[in-house]
């Protein structure tokens, strides 16, 4: 993203954003509610309007980008689907469609990728179960498996750990760690780092529609390292625990602004 203003309709949520994610990075996007974290990733995915500047994926302007199979997305929703029952396999199979020409039947490779994605989130025993009968945490894992089924090079997740059980958080952290080790690029929005701390290689803080910090992961900052914007005082941040509701850790940014 270069000098990008992003929003919905004519209303800009993010302004003057310069942001780049390199291959193999695991980037956590933090910030208070309404700061524009989700809009940042929605801009990349084509779900928010670029009002100024430019957004590119793999060197191609977003508007003409076609290789969407390279990008996986886990939305923020807590539940899956509408009123019609659908199985875990049916939902996860949707994640494979970006790989296919329209109306082509699924190949053995496609079916294997779907089963592997379900296995990766520990839901193999529930493959034929209707997703509506699963717990909230399991449904979130179904959404993660759907994104993994496409075997993406870049995985974008919006609040993947919000409101989910400890097992799901652990499974997610393990899955992301394996993906990062395998070279997948990860970009995720979160309120709580928790189990994700060992996974992340970089942190971006969004505040009031602008990026106020972009650098080393918060744990290093918490031990007194110097950020590109100045020294961060975030002793009050507990990177291993859940952040408070309003992400009081954002006092970090206040400190940065007051430098």
């Amino acid at each position: 993203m270069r000098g990008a203003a992003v929003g919905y309709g004519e209303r800009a949520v993010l302004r003057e954003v310069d942001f780049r994610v390199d291959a193999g990075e695991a980037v956590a996007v933090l910030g208070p509610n309404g700061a524009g974290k989700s809009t940042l990733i929605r801009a990349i995915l084509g779900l928010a309007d670029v009002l100024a500047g430019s957004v590119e994926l793999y060197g191609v302007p977003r508007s003409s980008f076609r290789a969407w199979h390279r990008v996986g997305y886990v939305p923020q929703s807590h539940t899956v689907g509408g009123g019609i029952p659908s199985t875990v396999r049916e939902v996860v199979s949707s994640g494979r469609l970006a790989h296919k020409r329209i109306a082509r039947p699924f190949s053995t490779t496609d079916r294997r990728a779907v089963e592997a994605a379900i296995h990766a989130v520990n839901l193999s025993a529930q493959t034929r179960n209707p997703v509506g009968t699963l717990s909230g945490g399991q449904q979130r894992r179904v959404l993660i498996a759907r994104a993994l089924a496409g075997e993406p090079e870049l995985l974008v997740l919006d609040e993947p750990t919000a409101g989910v059980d400890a097992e799901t958080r652990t499974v997610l952290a393990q899955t992301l760690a394996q993906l990062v080790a395998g070279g997948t690029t990860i970009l995720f929005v979160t309120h709580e780092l928790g189990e994700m701390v060992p996974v992340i290689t970089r942190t971006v803080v969004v505040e009031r529609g602008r990026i106020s910090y972009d650098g080393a992961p918060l744990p290093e900052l918490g031990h007194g390292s110097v950020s590109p914007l100045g020294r961060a005082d975030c002793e009050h941040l507990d990177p291993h625990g859940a952040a408070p509701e309003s992400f009081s850790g954002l006092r970090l940014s206040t400190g940065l602004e007051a430098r």
Partner: protein
Amino acid sequence: MEFLSYEFMQRALLAALLVGLTAPTVGVYLVQRRLALIGDGLGHVALAGVAIGVLTSQAPVLIALVFAVGGALALELIRARGRTSGDVALAIMFYGGIAGGVVIISQAPGGTPGNLNAFLFGAITTTTGADVAIFALLCGVVLMVTLGLSRYLFAVSNDEEYALASGLPVLRLNLLLVVVTAMTVVVSMRVIGLLLISALMILPIAAAQLIASSFRQTVAIGVGIGVLVSVSGVTLSFYADTPSGGTIVLLAIGVFSVVALVRAVLTAALRRRGSTASAT
């Protein structure tokens, strides 16, 4: 089986079979997208086409098809561009279509709104051989789309935002869905009537989702119920001398009620057994 010896009943049963087979395969996506009433809106628009057909003495089915498809495309584009809400667009269609139909038919020689009754509530025994041929062709197209693109239509109706982020052609798939909905409305016009068509798209699916455990199963059971109520409704209407459309819809409501009741009783029994087991 006396009724099978009449040619008009053979045509009627064939038309009913086509409608029963097709309507639920479209309805499943409409229910999933919470667009259950779109069939009603398109039926009203098709009525204006029927009235023009009557006024100009041209084939009402084909003109109704042109109107319904045009209305469907306009509705989806209005909804997708967010210019006005889907509800408002649907309301404009409802009232514009029926008002246009009534006004236009009044201009036909000897025309009264009563002439539209056969199209509003179905008059299956008036189905001609040419009608059945057109219906078969349209049903073939509808089934090719709804079954051939089922994975894509499922992905879009299940999570439109995810489908967009996956680069799927969401607008084109949505346009395709409303076009096949319009085709289904026109096919069903003679069998069940423009005012009742939504019932055959929605009720079999509503019943099926109560007992199915997957999307594919819901479609299969929904189609089974659709064919059952259409064919048996036409047969019943022959013996009871009742309008086919109303008979089919009442049967569909009956099937839905029985399935809902049986499910509620079974669920309660299972819950009781579970609580007894945990108490011991």
